[in-house]
């Protein structure tokens, strides 16, 4: 793996495009499963930026932050999918607009 010359700003461009697509998905979808998928895409884009920056300076720090993002994504998805099951049981739909009232 020597002599690679991928420009850093091209990787950051891909990362920010992925983040924008994820944010767009988060805003246009109402299905809670798609909202969770969009969050995964956004976390993944941020992780790509971290790893690219770590590779730019040849340091392992970027990959360590990537692993932390990975554990955040895993914890978030576990709790989020538990909430999906609750929403489906309570409202008989996955549309988040039906769950916009806070009540105990």
């Amino acid at each position, binding site marked *: *793996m020597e002599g*690679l*010359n*991928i*420009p*850093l*700003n091209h*990787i*950051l*461009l891909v990362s*920010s*495009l*992925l*983040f*924008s*697509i*994820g*944010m*767009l998905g988060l*805003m*246009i979808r*109402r*299905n809670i*499963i*798609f909202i969770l*998928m*969009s969050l*995964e*895409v956004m976390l*993944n884009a941020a*992780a*790509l930026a971290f*790893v*690219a920056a*770590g*590779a*730019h300076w*040849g340091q*392992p720090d*970027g*990959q*360590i932050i*990537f*692993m*932390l993002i*990975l*554990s*955040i994504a*895993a*914890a*978030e*998805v*576990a*709790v989020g*999918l*538990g*909430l999906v*099951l609750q929403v*489906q*049981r309570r409202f008989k739909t996955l549309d988040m607009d039906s769950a916009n009232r806070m009540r105990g």
Partner: protein
Amino acid sequence: MLEITLFYIAATIALAATVLAMTRANAIHALIYLIVSLLAVAVIFFLIGAPFAAALEIVIYAGAIMVLFVFVIMMLNLGEEGDARERGLLQPSIWAGPALLSFLLFAELLYMISTVEGPVSMQAVSAKEVGLALFGPYVLAVEIASMLLLAGLVGSYHLGRRYLEREE
């Protein structure tokens, strides 16, 4: 030169698969596209000299987290009427505004990263270096991650357990 070509192919696949995943009506189809996107990002990780991150991306993201999604979608047993509803919600009048706002933010990001220069990775950062740094200066971060995962475990058990009990 070959690596750069590979990078552009992988980046194109990642972007196309993500766009397709965000616009599918069927959740399983979207999930398959999302897995393709994650695999393409893993290829990018490998090309920029982070083989350990590439392996983790495949094993944990495309393996474990996506399997969780598959299980939940299969438990929910969504039918054809759900697909029809989703298609009705994907009209341009609904997504035009958010698309414009996302594009503006992306343009700002584009302006900011246009000042960044220089290539990445004259050499790969090996798994050994990552491990040494992880249990050296970053050991507190490992502890915090373990507490976060414990909280996620307890929270998802609590939510899922009540779901199973009330069903009976």
